[in-house]
């Protein structure tokens, strides 16, 4: 076996590892090629040839797969180049056919049970690999079921391999009494050990639950420490500044609420989440509470993103200039249309007296909406507060 995983660890002796990028099956050939300084094609052909000759190639491959570790890979795994896999498969089949036709490798067939058994045990062994098991366990129930299917398939292959091996060597008849004996012994042991194993299993589950609970508690404590205690300290320090105290308390309240109730929302993905985030940011920077109510939701398109920016400008104006104690934001997504209202009960102003060059309203709100195919209306009168209404058509669903 060429340059197996063994070898003293050290900078001079790199370990054989399986890269993810560029792998065809599991990356064994590529890893071994890198180790030996050869072209992976040479090793792949060697594996194919050895497999066709007497199956030993597959066994070697499986063994290497089992005993080497995978190179950690971040992000989505790149897809395999299936055309190459097919090519090697075709070469293998061609060689097999050639060998069978010429009668040169009749002995090779005898090794197939070994290959089957090898693949089966490989599947079973893979489950013991901690990081792979982690990946399988992490996901949903469907994955758990898949896991069980894997185990079952592995067992079947191993059994087929074992029986095939015996049959190929004409030992099946002789082995029968032994098998029966083994089954009886194993059954007896299972009967004796079952209650103990069950107890052990239960204990294990209990411990696991306990550990999860403890982890949750630790996470909770960490969160409370990082945010809540921190804010309380800040509040004590700023006790003389009631505005700052209110701002701190409110931003902490919002954060805690999000953490407790809000499903993980990606602020870049939906209109409601984006409006909430923008409102929260402006609330923090201006110290004026912004009450947000959202009805319905839809994915955030570039146009709607501009709309959210226009709404943000309206919030800034209301928080900075209106003197209103609170700003109300209402966003509604209906089939075919999105509407956002930003309202304050502040001083208001006379629209006709706003100079042409005031960028806030004309450019950042009205202009931006019109450029993106929407519209904005501003309703205001001195002393009556201001309401900015933004509408934009969307693809009706």
């Amino acid at each position, binding site marked *: 076996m060429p340059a197996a995983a063994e070898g003293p660890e050290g900078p001079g002796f790199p370990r054989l590892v399986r890269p993810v990028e560029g792998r065809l099956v599991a990356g064994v050939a590529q890893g071994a090629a890198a180790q030996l300084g050869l072209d992976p094609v040479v090793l792949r052909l060697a594996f194919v040839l050895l497999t066709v000759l007497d199956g030993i190639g597959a066994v070697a491959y499986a063994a290497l797969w089992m005993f080497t570790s995978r190179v950690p890979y971040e992000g989505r795994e790149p897809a395999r180049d299936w055309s190459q896999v097919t090519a090697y498969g075709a070469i293998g089949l061609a060689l097999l056919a050639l060998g069978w036709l010429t009668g040169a490798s009749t002995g090779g067939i005898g090794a197939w049970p070994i290959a089957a058994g090898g693949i089966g045990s490989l599947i079973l062994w893979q489950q013991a690999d901690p990081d792979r098991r982690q990946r399988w366990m992490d996901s949903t129930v469907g994955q758990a079921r898949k896991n069980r299917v894997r185990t079952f398939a592995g067992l079947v292959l191993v059994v087929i391999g074992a029986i095939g091996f015996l049959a190929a060597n004409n030992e099946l008849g002789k082995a029968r009494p032994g098998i029966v004996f083994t089954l009886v012994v194993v059954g007896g042991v299972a009967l004796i050990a079952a209650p103990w194993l069950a107890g052990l299993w239960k204990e294990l589950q209990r411990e696991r639950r306990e550990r999860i609970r403890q982890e949750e508690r630790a996470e909770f404590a960490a969160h409370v420490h990082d945010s809540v205690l921190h804010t309380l300290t800040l509040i004590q320090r700023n006790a003389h500044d009631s505005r700052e105290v209110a701002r701190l308390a409110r931003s902490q309240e919002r954060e805690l*609420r*999000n953490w*407790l*109730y*809000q*499903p993980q929302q990606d602020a870049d993905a939906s209109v409601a989440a984006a409006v909430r985030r923008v409102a929260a940011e402006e609330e923090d920077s201006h110290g004026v*509470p912004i*009450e947000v*109510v*959202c*009805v*319905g939701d839809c994915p955030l398109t570039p146009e709607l993103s501009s709309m959210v920016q226009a709404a943000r400008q309206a919030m800034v104006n209301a928080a900075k200039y209106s003197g209103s104690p*609170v700003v*109300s934001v*209402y966003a*509604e997504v*209906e089939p075919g249309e999105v509407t956002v*209202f930003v*309202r304050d*009960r502040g001083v208001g102003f006379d629209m006709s007296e706003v100079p042409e060059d005031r960028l806030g309203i004309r450019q950042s709100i009205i202009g931006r909406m019109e450029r993106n195919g929407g519209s904005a209306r501003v309703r205001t009168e001195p002393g009556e507060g201001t*309401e900015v209404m933004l509408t934009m058509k969307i693809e009706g669903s």
Partner: protein
Amino acid sequence: MGAIKVLIVDDHRLFRSGVRAELGDAVEVIGEAEDVESAVRTIAELQPDVVLLDVHMPGGGGQEVLRRVLGSGSQVRFLALSVSDAAEDVIGVIRGGARGYVTKTISGRELTDAIRRVADGDAVFSPRLAGFVLDAFASSEAPAIDPELDSLTQREREVLRLIARGYAYKEIAKELFISVKTVETHVSSVLRKLQLSNRHELSRWATARRLV
């Protein structure tokens, strides 16, 4: 008509005294209770006009108080007052029989208005509650079983939308060219639908949407 008699039910002593101070002389606070048991007892004893009810309390919370008091045929009116803005809680107490829902951040003046409105038999909707109702009644995947109860009229929708936009009843009346009384009628009618509609969606929607 004399001052409105109010009972405050909340498990936080600090909060009770805070509300008492904020309400001032506008209404008469005749008592306090700190858990479900004492609330049920005190309500029967003192017969207040309006109960300010906390949603989260030991012993079953506000919904349990509503169940036991209204279940016994009492005509006391409840205004839910809570820090939680979770849809589950809001829809829960409203369907439990409360005539309104406001959050604890409400100002003293607004709270007094809300209490007066509830005492008069009207409903009090916060902007967020209005948003929830619009959202819940908008998701109409299943056909309405009782069209009268299971859908909102165009006018009710308009009123709710204005509440969600932060308009006070008086401003809504002006906006829609109707009287404040008519606005109150619309809101009460929405409240009735919210309480009586057997749209199973409503509860499911609230549970599915554990949002603040």
